[in-house]
């Protein structure tokens, strides 16, 4: 990288030229990143959602749900990825587990809150009509929990997709490979890949926001797009 590379706004033009010149390469890298993200999201969902829902149904172990979200914020993704690399070695498995752990926090917390927070009167009414615990969960609690449940999935997905590029430092591939390898791709390539990463994340965010309003039961719909990431 030269000094001229850094100081020049025309680098953005070069960055778009890089995107135009290497569409297949970038798509391949983007697909690697999507694969890794999907695998991590699936792993996190399989662990966190049933656990959160069941704990919420029985209103037990709220400390675990709160602890998961605090842990998720306090442990930097770079530290998590580097630490798992020392245990599982370089490659897909290490990154998948590290990213899945990042996604577990928001999903577990939101799944717990979603089911735990269902109106007690509605649950009591259902029981009064003779529903069993399983029926209450399936027909009352889960439908009412969908918006918050999906918020957890959405936050986890956006977090995982946004963190996946960092996996490149531990052999995870993806667009991050280009971003952390300025020696090979020069600043133009790094910026081009950064744009693609940004578009990918924004695309996932918007697609999930649209999907969320589609899966929300009619009676519960309201705008969720502008809500703070902190809530």
């Amino acid at each position: 990288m030269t000094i001229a590379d850094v100081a020049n706004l025309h680098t953005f033009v070069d960055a778009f030229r890089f995107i135009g010149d290497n569409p297949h390469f970038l798509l391949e890298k983007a697909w690697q990143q999507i694969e890794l993200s999907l695998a991590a999201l699936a792993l996190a969902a399989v662990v966190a959602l049933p656990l959160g829902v069941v704990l919420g149904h029985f209103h037990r172990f709220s400390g675990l749900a709160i602890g998961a979200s605090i842990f998720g914020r306090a442990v930097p993704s770079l530290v998590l990825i580097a630490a798992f690399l020392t245990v599982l070695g370089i490659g897909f498995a290490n990154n998948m587990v590290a990213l899945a752990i990042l996604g577990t926090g928001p999903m577990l917390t939101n799944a717990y809150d979603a089911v735990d927070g269902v109106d007690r009167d509605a649950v009591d009414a259902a029981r009064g009509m003779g529903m069993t615990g399983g029926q209450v969960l399936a027909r009352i609690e889960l439908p009412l929990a969908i918006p918050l449940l999906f918020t957890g999935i959405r936050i986890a997905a956006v977090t995982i997709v946004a963190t996946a590029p960092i996996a490149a430092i531990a052999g995870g591939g993806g667009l991050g490979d280009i971003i952390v390898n300025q020696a090979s791709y020069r600043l133009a390539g790094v910026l081009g890949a950064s744009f693609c990463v940004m578009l990918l994340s924004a695309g996932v965010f918007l697609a999930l926001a649209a999907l969320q309003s589609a899966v929300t039961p009619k009676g519960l719909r309201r705008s969720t797009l502008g809500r703070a990431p902190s809530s």
Partner: protein
Amino acid sequence: MRLAGGGPVIPNFGQGSSCVTGDHVFCWGWVKAHWGDTLGPALVQHIELTLIAVAIGFAIAFPLALLAHRYHRLEQPFGTVAALLYTIPSLALFQLLVPFTGITRTTIEVALVSYTLVILFPNIMAGLRSVPADVIEAAQGMGLTRRQVLWRIELPLAVPSIIAGLRIAVVSTVAIATIAATLLRDGLGSPILDALQDPIPFKTEIYSAGLLAVALALAADTVLVALRHVLVRWPRNAE
């Protein structure tokens, strides 16, 4: 990094203790020997990065929130821009700022400040909005002006929410600042990235720097919780 300035491919792997050369899980001796030249300075840099980012972020978010509180139409645009901004991965954002500010600490800070805005702005707004309408009416009935209502009623009652926002902002900034090391060797991310570049990733360096980052986040959080207890004198359940 065990030796600044590179040198041979495996700088001083052979000079380490048997613990270091044997790739043991954690070498306490290495931590003590390299606190002064590696871990300590990285920790200080990390604290600087975080404090500057949160301070500037608060200085921008606070007046913006007061503005949006006064002119409600501004809130939705601010909120949407903030939510989209937060989806930009930090690894990419650091690089995308390079043409403007170069490979400098300024670039790191601009990115970190942007992320703190996304967290602080909505939390300050939520705090201001949480004040019950009858409290404000009572204040107005006592003859307080709009400015007095803001500074004597709304802001004091918004303190818990503002501190909640600061807690999330500080903890997130500590985490995101580790990634800044991919741009410029600064903060606790540097020893981790250096350790990853060894032929066999150096575990002690990864674990010690990682633990310091987590400890820093938790310590900062504890300080803010203590600050909340000092500033908020009414009981928790009365909020």
